[in-house]
């Protein structure tokens, strides 16, 4: 939570955010409260491009982007913040620069580097929400453990081919369990966009759902994903919501419960 942000909107902000302020349940007070919130987005690929752009656009006060990748030609079909001149540049820096030009009312910071067990404490400090937009199981499990132990809400999104998955590990809903309660391995045969491919627009679909559910959670302290997982099929337009529960043998939840 950022405390030094103004308690009001200036005229530029009022016009900029007018289309969401006019929604009855949103209003000026919600818009002001968003300015005080901080979100860390891990992964500046397809999901991160979209989720970050909508959250910065919406006026979340502080947004950090963490990624150690550089932009490659094969990223351009779906990572729409980048263009041909971005190739070989840091994704985190490129995206952060683009976001700053999108909305200069938001403090945007880019960190070029991969999350590891050694640096996670430094790169993921206490904040209002972490959004997992990464592309591998090792970092997903690392983020999950860190967020559960430090009681930071974690909104996880993933995508391959035509399919996407979304869930929120919510410290307010420990009975719903964590990411590891569902998936216990650090590696799995089902791969990522680099190994089994992805339909470009699907990262847009899942990234946009991450942004909308993040805004729902940040403004209401609850969202549909707090105790459910969403399975989304972009081919059949199917969305399946499944109720989650804690795995009694989960090593992560067990660590926290045993403290």
């Amino acid at each position, binding site marked *: 939570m950022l405390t030094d942000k103004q308690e009001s909107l200036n005229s530029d902000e009022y016009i900029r955010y007018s289309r969401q302020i006019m929604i009855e349940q949103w209003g000026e007070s919600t818009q002001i409260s968003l300015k005080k919130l901080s979100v860390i987005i891990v992964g500046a690929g*397809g999901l991160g491009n979209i989720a970050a752009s909508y959250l910065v656009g919406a006026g979340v006060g502080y947004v950090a982007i963490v990624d150690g990748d550089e932009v490659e030609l094969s990223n351009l079909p779906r990572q729409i913040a980048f263009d041909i001149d971005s190739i070989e540049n840091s994704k985190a820096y490129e995206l952060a620069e683009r976001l700053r030009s999108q909305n200069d009312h938001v403090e945007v910071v880019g960190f070029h580097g991969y999350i590891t067990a050694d640096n996670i404490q430094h790169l993921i400090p206490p904040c209002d929400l972490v959004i997992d937009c990464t592309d591998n199981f090792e970092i997903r499990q690392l983020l999950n453990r860190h967020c559960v132990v430090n009681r930071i809400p974690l909104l996880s999104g993933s995508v391959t081919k035509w399919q996407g998955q979304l869930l929120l590990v919510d410290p307010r809903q420990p009975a719903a369990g964590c990411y590891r309660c569902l998936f216990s391995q650090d590696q799995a045969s*089902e791969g990522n966009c680099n190994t089994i491919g992805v339909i470009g627009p699907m990262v847009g679909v899942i990234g946009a759902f991450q942004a909308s559910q993040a805004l729902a959670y940040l403004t209401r302290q609850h969202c549909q994903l707090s105790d459910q997982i969403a399975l989304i099929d972009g081919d059949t337009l199917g969305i399946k919501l499944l109720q989650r529960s804690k795995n009694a*043998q989960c090593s992560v939840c067990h660590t926290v419960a045993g403290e």
Partner: protein
Amino acid sequence: MSSVLVNQQQTIEIEDGKTTLATLVTTIASGDDIAVAVNNHIITKEKWSEHLLCDNDNINIFGAIAGG
């Protein structure tokens, strides 16, 4: 004969109130990191061997995906 519907596609015969979820999973899924829901509720892995399936149960089996 009783049966369950898996992923909206596959009908599998079971013994009502006797076949466990663990048995069903071993029959139709590989040993990958998978999650299973019965009637829209995830059954966590440690409960698979004690969860008894019923006629017309609706089963979802899915694997973790990691792309971003």
